[in-house]
């Protein structure tokens, strides 16, 4: 070994330069994670199945598959609540806690980059990672849907759906990051968020179907309270042509519905009892779709900001002992 030639040309970098360096650091990690590659492969496999199975069944039954010009806009990328949760967990479960567990946080935090920049860089890298994955899935579903169901309507709404899906996913991203920052343990971050997800996924449909207090689901992450749009298609709650959910998982669908039916109202209901024949329905309340949409975006944004603040604060205050 011989000494490095010293030129002393290093300059004080601006925060944008440092921020982008952190984004690059994190992005390279995200796209090379086996977990992330795995979930993308699974998502593509499921998307392919959802496109191919109707074709296979129609061929087997000898009935021709009908054209559906609204398939892509009503399905989106077909990710849904579980998909949002899984994408969030695999993208950020190691982002902060994993660095502490492996000790890689030490060289990173001793570079001339503030902890706030490191945190923001990691969040932005998660955003870019999810945006890229979802965009590719949306393009895939658009092409596939057009091939299977014929020319599609309202394709200009796809970016809106993409944005809504990202917002829904980021509620879970913020929760995973917050638990990870507080515990410095990736497994607790993933399992803790999974616990919240499962609890809400089980309780939300029960509360929504049987309780008069279903409105409370509007304010928790996940599927939310169920309703349907009046005056559009079927009027039966169990077979609505357009169903609506108030939760943070349904922002993409609510955005599309709002653009297509801006002045419509949403009827929320519960099951009143089980008489012979079919269950009796009790109408709970009616709200404008615009209010449902605005509230789901506000609730999601509030969760994202609140949990992000918790995780930023915990990260900034952390002392690196190991």
């Amino acid at each position: 070994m011989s000494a490095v030639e010293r030129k002393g040309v290093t300059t004080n970098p601006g925060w944008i330069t440092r921020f982008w360096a952190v984004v690059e650091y994190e992005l390279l990690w995200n796209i090379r994670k086996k977990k992330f590659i795995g979930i993308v492969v699974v998502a593509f496999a499921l998307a392919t199945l959802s496109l191919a199975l109707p074709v296979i069944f129609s061929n087997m039954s000898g009935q021709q598959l009908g054209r559906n010009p609204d398939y892509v806009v009503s399905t989106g990328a077909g990710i849904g609540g579980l998909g949002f949760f899984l994408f969030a967990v695999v993208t950020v479960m190691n982002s902060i806690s994993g660095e502490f567990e492996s000790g890689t946080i030490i060289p990173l935090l001793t570079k001339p980059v503030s902890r706030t920049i490191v945190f923001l860089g990691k969040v932005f890298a998660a955003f870019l990672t999810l945006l890229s994955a979802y965009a590719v899935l949306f393009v895939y579903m658009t092409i596939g849907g057009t091939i299977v169901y014929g020319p599609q309507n309202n394709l200009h709404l796809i970016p809106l759906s993409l944005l809504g899906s990202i917002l829904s996913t980021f509620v879970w991203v913020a929760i995973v990051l917050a638990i990870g920052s507080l515990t410095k343990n990736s497994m607790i971050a993933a399992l803790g968020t999974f616990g919240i997800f499962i609890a809400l996924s089980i309780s939300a449909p029960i509360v929504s179907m049987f309780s008069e207090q279903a409105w409370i689901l509007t304010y928790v992450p996940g599927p939310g309270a169920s309703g349907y749009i009046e005056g559009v298609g079927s009027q039966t709650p169990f077979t609505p042509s357009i169903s609506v959910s108030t939760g943070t998982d349904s922002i993409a669908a609510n955005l599309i519905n709002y653009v297509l039916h801006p002045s419509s109202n949403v009827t929320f209901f519960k099951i009143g009892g089980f008489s012979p024949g079919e269950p009796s329905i009790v109408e709970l309340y009616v709200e404008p779709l615009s209010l449902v949409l605005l509230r789901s975006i506000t609730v999601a944004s509030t969760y994202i900001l609140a949990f992000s603040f918790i995780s930023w604060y915990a990260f900034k205050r952390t002392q690196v002992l190991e």
Partner: protein
Amino acid sequence: MELAIETRGLTKRYGSLTAVNNLDLKVERNTIHGFLGPNGAGKTTTIKVLVGLLKPDEGTIRVLGQEVCGDRPDARLRMGYMPELPKFPKHLKGWELLDIYGKMYGMGKQERREQIPKLLEIVGLKGRGRDFIGKYSKGMQQRLGIAQALLNEPELIILDEPSLGLDPVGKVEVRELMKEIAKEGVTIFLSSHLLFEVEQICSHVTIIHRGVSLVSDTLQNVSSKLSGLTTLQIEVAKISNSIVNAVKRLPFVSDVSQSGDTLIIELRTRDDVRSQISQEITRAGGVIVSMSYKGQGLEEVFIQLISRSRRGETA
């Protein structure tokens, strides 16, 4: 005297345990300063406070003239740091890691392109830069740790056990590298368990125990301060009592004992008195075959200090 590192009353507690206790540390610029202490003495805690990984409970810290306390990224611009057994993201390639760190330091593209291959060659990772760090051995990660600490051409390099995990050749190479870097006016603050390594390359040394600084001075002064006596061993042909008595009479000699043909002389001074002693022996009819100091090496000093500290005595 310009200081690269200066702490005053630095105190860091973990609950009821005081890891660093009122530490006053002064590291002069353009020196290689060894930071020694037994396990759990507070070395790594002190270093982590210096680089902003830990926040002190009390005291002030100045690094390269800048006040440092907690997360101060600009203070780290002119500093390089290698942690003990550094860990880097396995998903990155060695070259990518240095490139990203270079961007954080504000290095331009051209500068990075020139600097990174050079650094990889210096630390012995030439040809391995495009491999994923996950494929690196512990020693290779250690070498990468040295490379990233030198990346920004720092004025101050803080190294926590730089030789740990390196093979014997690597240890020698790192020592030589540090000497070379120090020649260019870089201050090196080095924590090490290898006392002979510190002895070989450091000009200054601080020894801490239980978070308290026991001694901090030049290497030479540390040895002198700790012992008023230095031992000189002289092998003499034709040894006799008259030779022993002649040496005993010298004013700076404390005691003389004989072991075969060897005189063991305890000196009261640390001045070089070999010529006076050899004259006296020759005058008394002796013939000197060999002469060597059995001085207080750093290891003896270290053990002596730590033992005293454990007994509750001051240095």
